[in-house]
């Protein structure tokens, strides 16, 4: 692929080929595009660190209401003792926002892994083998795609909530279902275009078994698009989770701190002058989703040769390349 065609000399010294490959497009950016990419990266990293180390960073637990037997006051203004104030349950808002980052991370990672684990193999098989399997799968996926994603997530979360019980897994699964068709589509369409490539043909002609061809030649080619989509979907997943939480079909307050739920609870407070319970988790959603989107768009732009503004003059790129298709899939 064209992506790694030119590597800035700086990057060459670090890491193995994998890291270099990852770094190269970033190194190739310049000016504002780079600023946005870096800003997105830093924001995402910031939340990632908070999420992973919530236990040590958060001043209190997300349902902690007292310390050494002394109860926190409820609905106190942001102050030195509670930087973001406290809720009606005397929970510390700052702690809930920090623990909320962990909840988001868990749900997003789980849902992406699930969506990839289901969507990518199905797309590969469907695209490679075609015929009845392909037609059937496309039909089902299109049917799923016809649902507004949030609606599908609500219905799934609602149903799972009554059988399995609500929680992180349920929320993640509800979100997964809405993304499977996307991965399936992208991967399938790409496989179809790759399938006819000379090197794949050659491999087939040499007598490689279908699964080997998929694994060795098609998969690697196709899967390069996935990180960008995954990044942008992560942003979307956070919004979907917040939407679920807002409607009361997400994670319940005792199972974990969740921003969407906290915003919903905070909204009624806000009309009464208690702005801090809803605004902080709301802003957290906005900032994190913005960060991830910046990162995703930046990656997309640097990987995508059409959009990239190159440092070193023209580089030949694969005109039927995936990245262009990717932009379309992305924005669709």
């Amino acid at each position: 692929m064209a992506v790694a065609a030119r590597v800035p000399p700086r990057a060459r010294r670090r890491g193995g080929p994998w890291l270099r490959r990852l770094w190269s497009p970033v190194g190739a950016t310049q000016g504002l595009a780079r600023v946005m990419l870096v800003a997105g990266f830093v924001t995402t990293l910031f939340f990632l660190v908070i999420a992973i180390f919530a236990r040590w960073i958060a001043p209190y637990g997300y349902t902690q209401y007292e310390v050494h037997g002394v109860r926190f006051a409820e609905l106190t203004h942001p102050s030195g003792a509670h930087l973001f104030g406290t809720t009606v349950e005397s929970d510390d808002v700052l702690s809930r926002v920090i623990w909320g980052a962990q909840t988001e991370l868990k749900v997003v990672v789980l849902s992406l892994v699930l969506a990839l684990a289901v969507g990518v193999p199905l797309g590969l098989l469907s695209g490679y083998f075609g015929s009845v399997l392909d037609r059937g799968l496309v039909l089902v996926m299109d049917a799923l795609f016809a649902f507004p994603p949030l609606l599908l997530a609500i219905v799934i979360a609602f149903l799972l909530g009554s059988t399995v019980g609500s929680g992180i897994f349920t929320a993640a699964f509800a979100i997964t279902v809405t993304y499977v068709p996307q991965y399936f589509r992208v991967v399938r369409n790409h496989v179809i275009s790759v399938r006819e490539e000379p090197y794949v043909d050659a491999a087939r002609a040499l007598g490689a078994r279908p699964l080997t061809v998929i694994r060795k030649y098609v998969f690697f080619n196709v899967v390069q698009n996935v990180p960008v989509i995954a990044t942008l979907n992560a942003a979307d997943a956070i919004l979907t989770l917040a939407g679920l939480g807002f409607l009361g079909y997400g994670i319940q307050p005792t199972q974990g701190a969740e921003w969407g739920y906290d915003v919903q609870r905070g909204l009624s407070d806000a009309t009464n002058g208690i702005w801090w319970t809803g605004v902080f988790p709301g802003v957290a959603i906005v900032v994190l989703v913005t960060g991830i989107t910046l990162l995703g768009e930046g990656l997309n732009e640097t990987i995508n040769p059409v959009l990239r503004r190159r440092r070193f003059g023209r580089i030949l790129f694969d005109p039927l390349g995936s990245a262009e298709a990717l932009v379309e899939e992305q924005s669709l």
Partner: protein
Amino acid sequence: MTGTSLKAYALTRLALVVPMVWILLTLVFLLMRVAPGNPISAALGGHAAPSVIEAITHRLGYDKPMYVQYGDYLWGVLHGDLGHTITDRRAVSSIIVQNGGATLELTVFASLIALGVGLLVGLLAGRYRDTWLDVGGRLFGIVAYATPVFFLGFLAQLVFGIWLGWLPTSGQDSPLTDAFLRIHTHILIIDAIWDGDPGALGDILKHLILPATTLGIVYAGIFIRLVRVNVIRSLKDDYVEAARARGIRERSVVYHYAFRNALVPVVTVVGLQLALLLGGAILTEETFNWPGIGSTLVTYLADRDYAGVQGIVIVFALVVVIASLVIDFVNAFVDPRIRY
């Protein structure tokens, strides 16, 4: 392009809709029935003894085997009967007529705002790429997209409704307008114009501003992104380069060639984004107490009203299916390369 091939394409595409709708109906039916929980006991609100619940369940046929219910359901749909809700005995078709108007009003105006904002910001950002205008426009688009519609909606209610007191914060019109406006179409704007009632029209428009803008701005984020990318791409297209080579002024190149070409895919996307728009409409309607199908759906979902949820979910999905069908036709008509 020959007429027969377009016709053949249209027929295949239409034929594909049938199994798709069937799959949709089946999916929704299964989803609503696999989980435990019973619309009857929810409707009785925890008052009734188990024997009473059993008797009513039996009378309504909810204890029949699943495949019989499924058959009954498909049979009904085939005859254009989407069923009646269990909790308040409304015909699903009447829900679509009565509440659909509100959703239509909201989504149409939100789309207009999204298109307006999206085109303007997207074109500017794409044209003045890598300047601060671009960064500002893109950031605006990304933040707009990153803001949950209910959060933005609430901030808007707080600022424009409470602090400034300029605009009403909820509902489709004020109670008195609602009481006296004569209903012709269930699309209140049209009804007010029909009756030549400027007072009512003003009231309705005032109520529309916040919800439509909220949904529109969030939705605009997508357009900004798309239009910008398209402008950048078409500015690099061969014939744009060719136009430049011919010595046509850059300004003219941009307006005549690049923008126009950048807009074609946008039209397609308006249709394809319908699913997303409808999803956003559910949250917007919830936030602004907007009496559309989305908020109605949430109510029936909470009441576990199978019939109501089934009917509304299918309507949502059908709208998306039909929209994508229409777009495919339009595209096939415009661009002869597109065939299956």
